[in-house]
């Protein structure tokens, strides 16, 4: 006679065959892309005890109540495109796979919003929105990612959608339905106002709890519905690329363009990122890398025909005055931008993303949020860290001056810059990678500190540790919220709250 397992029995009562405690089923929820890179997987032997596949908010609520009752940890995922082990049940317990909550609940064409469950992917929603000439911010990630989980972690539109005009994905959220750790179903946004009862605007009754779930990695509850604002697809669209030989001129152009609020999207790429996307062998990657200009500004011009004509005129003038060369939109890779603009991250855009990972393997050492004036210093600090590295700096091994990249993403009017994504290329299969990456990361932090930039960085032992060690008053206050809502730390333990 096996021992009684009341948690399992209660889960089965609610979910029937959508719950499993088979080791084979549980095992398949233990790693993501960078697992092998950042962790010795053989060291990680913690599996969830149960995996569940809920389909409704009510089922999620019941699961949460069981967990709370028995003090069993919950870990959850919407789609696991994550590269950082954000959904590994490092404390065991119940693992909630939300993929079966995959319905688009409403597309409200009048208010230009869409309401989705967490298993709805960017591709799925974009597919329906396109038919209505609408779009949402599309990340550079494979479009198989959940709208909810992507926007929860910010939703970073990559090289694609209208980062400058619309902003990060989460800025398009107008409300969520969320199951809190005590089983309460909370609505944020205008729906929290009982007199309105509709999601159309992010801010409801005060105090505004709009941001409670963001970057919380499930610690404050499970989002079961999200309503996002949609944007009409513009009639006219062009992609421009301006090449520069030095970061200072590129930044001058960047700043002038963003201050004018001229275009819906602009990125500054430095280094090899583009070659990585467009090539699938090391040789062609390296060839293209050497041939391409070191700094490139990539812009999206969009609007009515007249608006685009005006944007083009001003861009040409700024390029000329800052010593930039306009490379016209003739390269096939631009197809990826155009597709993505139409809302299809998962088409060519993401093929390139995946190629990037295939041919070289990429990882980022740090992605700080910086004010515009700090960018050149940051780039130079990173370059110094690379060049003094025994592997990356070795022209025969790393060809350091080429195989590094940053992307500057100005957000929402460009008055601040979100994300200076600094990457190095490496082979994910190479055991040396982890060591190299950690070494480079350390050097980078030292060089950054010399120019007054602090950044706790990206590299952690994601699988066995936590998301770094948040600190400061902000974190202490958040701990009090957490304690009130989740006294036993049942929701997503081991990540933000150990």
């Amino acid at each position, binding site marked *: 006679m096996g021992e009684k397992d009341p948690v399992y029995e209660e889960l089965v009562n609610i979910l029937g065959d*959508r719950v*499993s405690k*088979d*080791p*084979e*089923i549980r*095992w*398949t*929820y*233990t*790693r*993501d*892309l960078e*697992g*092998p890179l950042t962790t010795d*997987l*053989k060291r990680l*032997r913690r599996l969830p005890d149960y*995996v569940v*596949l809920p389909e409704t908010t009510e089922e999620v609520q019941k699961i949460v109540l069981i967990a709370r009752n028995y003090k069993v940890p919950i870990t959850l995922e919407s*789609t*696991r*495109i*994550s*590269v950082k082990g954000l959904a590994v049940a490092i404390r065991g317990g119940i693992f909630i*796979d939300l*993929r*079966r909550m995959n319905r688009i609940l409403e597309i409200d064409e009048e208010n230009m919003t869409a309401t989705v469950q967490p298993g709805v992917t960017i*591709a*799925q929603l974009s*597919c*329906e929105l396109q*038919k209505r000439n609408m779009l949402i911010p599309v990340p550079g990630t*494979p*479009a*198989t990612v959940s709208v909810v989980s992507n926007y929860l972690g910010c939703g970073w539109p990559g090289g694609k959608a209208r980062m400058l005009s619309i902003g990060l994905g989460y800025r398009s959220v107008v409300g969520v339905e969320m199951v809190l750790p005590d089983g309460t179903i909370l609505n944020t946004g205008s729906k929290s106002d009982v007199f309105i009862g509709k999601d159309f605007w992010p801010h409801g009754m005060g105090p505004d709890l709009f941001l409670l779930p963001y970057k919380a990695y499930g610690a404050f509850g499970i989002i079961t519905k999200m309503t996002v604002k949609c944007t009409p697809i513009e009639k006219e669209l062009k992609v421009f690329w301006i090449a520069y030989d030095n970061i200072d001129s590129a930044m001058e152009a960047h700043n002038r363009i963003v201050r004018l609020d001229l275009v819906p999207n602009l990125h500054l790429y430095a280094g090899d990122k583009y070659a990585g996307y467009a090539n699938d062998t090391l040789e062609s990657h390296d060839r293209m890398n050497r041939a391409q200009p070191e700094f490139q500004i990539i812009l999206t011009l969009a609007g009515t025909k007249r608006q685009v004509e005006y944007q083009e005129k001003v861009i040409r003038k700024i390029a000329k005055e800052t010593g930039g060369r306009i490379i016209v939109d003739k390269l096939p890779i631009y197809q990826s931008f155009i*597709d993505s603009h139409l809302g*299809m991250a*998962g*088409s*060519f855009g*993401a*093929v390139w993303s*995946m*190629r990037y*990972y*295939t041919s070289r393997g990429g990882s980022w050492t740090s992605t700080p949020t910086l004010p515009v004036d700090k960018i050149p210093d940051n780039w130079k600090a990173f370059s110094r860290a690379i060049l003094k590295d025994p592997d990356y700096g070795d022209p025969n091994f790393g060809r350091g001056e080429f195989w590094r990249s940053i992307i500057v993403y100005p957000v929402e009017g460009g008055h601040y810059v979100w994300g200076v994504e600094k990457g190095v290329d490496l082979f*994910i*299969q190479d055991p040396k990678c982890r060591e190299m990456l950690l070494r480079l990361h350390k050097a980078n932090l030292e060089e950054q500190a010399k120019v007054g930039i602090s950044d706790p960085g990206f590299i952690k032992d994601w699988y066995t540790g936590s998301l770094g060690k948040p600190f400061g008053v902000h974190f202490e206050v958040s701990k009090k919220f957490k304690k009130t809502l989740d006294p036993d730390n049942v929701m997503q333990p081991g990540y933000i709250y150990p």
Partner: protein
Amino acid sequence: MPIEFCWPMERRSLEDYYEMILRCAKCEFCKNVFISNTEHWQFAKQCPPGERFGFAAYYATGRIEIARGLLEGELKWTDKLLHILYTCTTCGACEHWCSIFREVYPLKIIMEMRIKAVKEVGPLPAHKRLMENIVKYHNPYGESHEQRFEWLPSTVKTSGESSLVYFAGCSSSYRQQQIARSTVNILSKLGVKFNVLGGEEWCCGAPLFEVGLVDEAKKTLEHNIKTLNKMKVEKVVFTCPACMYTFKEASKYEIEEPKFELQHITDFLLPKLEKIKMKGLNEKLTYHDPCRLGRGLGIYEQPRKILKLIPGLELVEMPRHMEDSWCCGGGGGVLAQYPDFALWTASQRLEEMKFVGVKKLVTSCPACKTTLSLAIPPRLRRAREIQVVDVMELLSKVIP
């Protein structure tokens, strides 16, 4: 571009796939049709067991992790693990997309796991029966070998002199005889001289390769190849894509290699049909791409071109077609071991057919025809409200 997606032997052991396993990005491209092609999300999914059973383990992404678990010594063979492993229909959709995006080759990994499974714990009961039948009767159904060519109409003349052989395969010889009969009728009407193997035609081995019983599979495949080589034939045509695929893969198994050309019947007939005028057929129908024919052998256009040559015939595509096609559910030993699940998969295809407003589905594979036909609800089958036919059956009616 066809992909090599089945029973691979290049690496020769699961251990050799470890680094590829780690490379899986969990991007999940292998779950869906090519996203740019998606117009109807309800028909965007591609992995039948994943969609049916829901847990990650049943999709390619999870199967890869299972392989890691076995290699790291964390997982053991259990009934559940074997259920996961053997509900893969080997449709190759995951393999196809991953070969474009990331080159992890999930189906190769699945096939290696099956080879390891039969070595370590033996085949599943239904697969064991297939094996015993093939060894004893040279067909998976346990039918009498003597009756293999009973389908051959006495009116059709085969030619011992001919350098062309029609390899009918077990499904058409025993279960879908109409396909074999139609094929030889068509060849005769077109004046093509051909031969058949008669008692020397044995199962090609596909049902065994698919479930990991490679040693037994090699023997029966090699028997066919040796016979054909001895006969000095120049070309062998197939109506069964799985047979052709298996012959094509022969070079991987250290057995005698075919010294003849392989051709699918649709590819063989197309140029001949372009030169004749066929009778009209006022019908609206859809075409189902068999996994081995499409993703396996890269034959998508030929059957469609043939259908379009028939005057009056209207071909309507289902949302999932060509590389995006949804499996019939019968492959990979699934129909034998898990018939309910196979028929669930087939019923999803029939739903899709209904969605595009047609009542007749044409395919180009006897196994697909069998599985899809079995999924038609009995009432509709009796009333002939929904029909599943092979291209050959359709053609035999319209060739003058």
